[in-house]
């Protein structure tokens, strides 16, 4: 009799808790990414990964008993639309925190709006340095271009032992920042840049530049760009008979790069922030679940946005639903176990400190090559 009573009491409690989570007011978190237009592939990866994170949080009982509702908008990488989205998220949807799964432009124009409204935002992978300068409510989980460029310079001269270097730099803030960091680090250890050419986004033909590089026969070619340009440049380099080492960066980090470059991708080394051979079980679980759900390999854009969301979720768990308290909790994040590595902390202006991963393409997949955690390279600037 007593056992029966206890059993039913526990049962009722579980049901109540379950219903409680169902009917508890959902916690609204805003999210924007380019889901249509030229950047749709990256935006979709970011959204897919964050949806997986939301599912995971809700399956394990939500945040402090409340389910999370992600409010998703498509910014089309368009600054005007992003401004409208930011205002909508603040005024209509009344979100308490925001995750940017978008590029630099939408993140940069919305940062001051969220900061003014006192709503914390964590940018997944946008690289523009001015984003975090909008104010104390804005954080970034990705690397600054300059830091990743420095890491790439380190890989080129100290890991791959290259002396003469050629650079193909994508002609935007991202590529220019990478190039600055790369030059600085390479020069420090005696690397010599013999050729550099800036190319526009969407460039398909690299034959003119590659023919020139072939004549100079450098030890290493560092290419910055997104996977579409990167795959073409690498493929054409090998077709033209260029044999030097090729180094890339996080823009290469996509299953699409491997597919489009095919055999030419073998041996290409990249700096990024997702280590596929990470031994931590939750990283391998994420990779498995993502593949099962979306039928493709996850990429660094997705992993970074996933982490950005989890940082926000973690802060809400600790601090509740007051945006100011959430901001303070994000700012005091310490040694957070992220998909993209151990997130040491956010600095004074909201830049992340975490190691840079080095991956190599082997048998058509990214694998561990090294990790760069030298504080001289990975410490973000304080202003």
């Amino acid at each position: 009799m007593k056992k029966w009573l206890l059993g039913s009491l526990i049962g009722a409690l579980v049901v109540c808790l379950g219903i409680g989570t169902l009917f508890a007011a959902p916690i609204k978190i805003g999210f924007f990414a380019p889901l249509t237009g030229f950047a749709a592939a990256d935006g979709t990866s970011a959204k897919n990964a964050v949806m997986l994170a939301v599912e995971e949080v809700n399956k394990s009982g939500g945040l402090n008993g409340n389910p999370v509702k992600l409010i998703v908008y498509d910014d089309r990488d368009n600054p005007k639309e992003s401004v409208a989205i930011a205002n909508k998220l603040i005024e209509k949807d009344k979100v308490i925190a925001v995750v940017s799964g978008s590029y630099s432009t939408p993140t940069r124009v919305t940062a001051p709006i969220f900061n003014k409204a006192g709503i914390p935002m964590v940018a997944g992978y946008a690289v523009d340095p001015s984003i975090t300068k909008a104010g104390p409510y804005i954080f970034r989980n990705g690397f600054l271009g300059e830091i990743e460029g420095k890491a790439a310079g380190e890989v080129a001269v100290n890991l791959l032992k290259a002396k003469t270097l050629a650079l193909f730099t994508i002609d935007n803030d991202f590529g220019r920042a990478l190039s600055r960091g790369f030059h600085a680090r390479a020069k420090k250890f005696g690397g010599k840049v013999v050729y550099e050419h800036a190319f526009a986004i969407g460039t398909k033909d690299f034959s003119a530049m590659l023919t020139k590089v072939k004549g100079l026969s450098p030890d290493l070619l560092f290419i910055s760009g997104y996977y579409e340009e990167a795959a073409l440049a690498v493929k054409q380099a090998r077709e033209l008979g260029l044999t030097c080492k090729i180094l890339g960066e996080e823009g290469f980090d996509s299953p699409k790069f491997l597919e489009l470059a095919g055999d030419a991708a073998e041996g290409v080394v990249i700096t990024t922030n997702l280590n596929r051979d990470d031994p931590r079980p939750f990283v391998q679980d994420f990779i498995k679940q993502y593949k099962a759900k979306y039928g493709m390999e996850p990429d660094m854009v997705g992993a970074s946005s996933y982490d950005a969301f989890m940082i926000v979720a973690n802060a809400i768990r600790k601090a509740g639903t007051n945006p100011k308290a959430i901001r303070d909790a994000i700012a005091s994040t310490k040694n957070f176990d992220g998909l993209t590595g151990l997130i040491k902390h956010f600095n004074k202006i909201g830049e992340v400190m975490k190691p840079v991963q080095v991956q190599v393409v082997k048998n058509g997949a990214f694998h561990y090559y090294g990790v760069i955690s030298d504080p001289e390279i990975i410490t973000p600037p304080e202003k």
Partner: protein
Amino acid sequence: MPLQGKVIGMLAQQIVNGITIGSIYALIALGLTIVYGVLKILHIAHAGVYAMGAYLGLWAYRFIPNLFLAMIVAMALSGVSGIVIERFLYKSMLDKSRIVPLIASIGLFIAMEEAFRIISGPYVKAFPVHFRQKPWIFGSVRISAPQMLVFGVTIALLVLLWWVISKTRMGKALRAVSMDREMADALGVATERIISLSFFISSALAGAAGVLVGVFYNSVYPTMGDIPAYKALAIIVLGGMGSIPGTILGAFLVGISETFLIGFVNIPLPRDALAFIVMIAVLMFRPYGLLGKE
């Protein structure tokens, strides 16, 4: 290799690179110039037809893994889509101001890009053709198998186009319509059929270009028409609006100038601006384009 030989080798390789790019530009821009010649409208959605050709080729190639058959299927279906576009979009607008079909065309182009994205996803698709042919190597010049494919198909299509336009009755009628549509109509030329024919030819060429670009760069994606949409415009203005030989000349001039300016001068301007610089430079001396008439 002595320095001089090396420079000549590099020069020759850059010419090969430039001709490859020029061939692709020619196939895309020709359709635009033919349509302009006949209807005097700027058919921006032509770049959408080009992207569609790439998707159709990829789709056909999955059923029949023969590139030539896939290309013929893509050309035929693109050609038919051209006729449909003319019948259902432009036909009712021909007596309106010229801005009307232009805006409709831009709208159609955007709609097509989004349709590709909805149907086949935002990601770039590979066009996995494996060439057994080894590259031809002459000294330091390499011509890869995909380059041979681009040259071969372009030459074949240009010869075919020349034959249709200058040797057949249809071609004669097409030239008549493009000189003066109303007069041709009055003299008993079946102008509607000739307009359809011109859209078929143009769109089939664009479809072939789409497949070639897809294979050559191993990538097919929804917005692949963005750059050709305006670059083809620069090329036909450069060649002289509506002039077929002018367009071919313009395409090769732009392809080779781009390659040389990037390969030798290392100018800091984006590559896609170069077509317009070449266009402006030519228009300063020849305001009607290379082979255009007043």
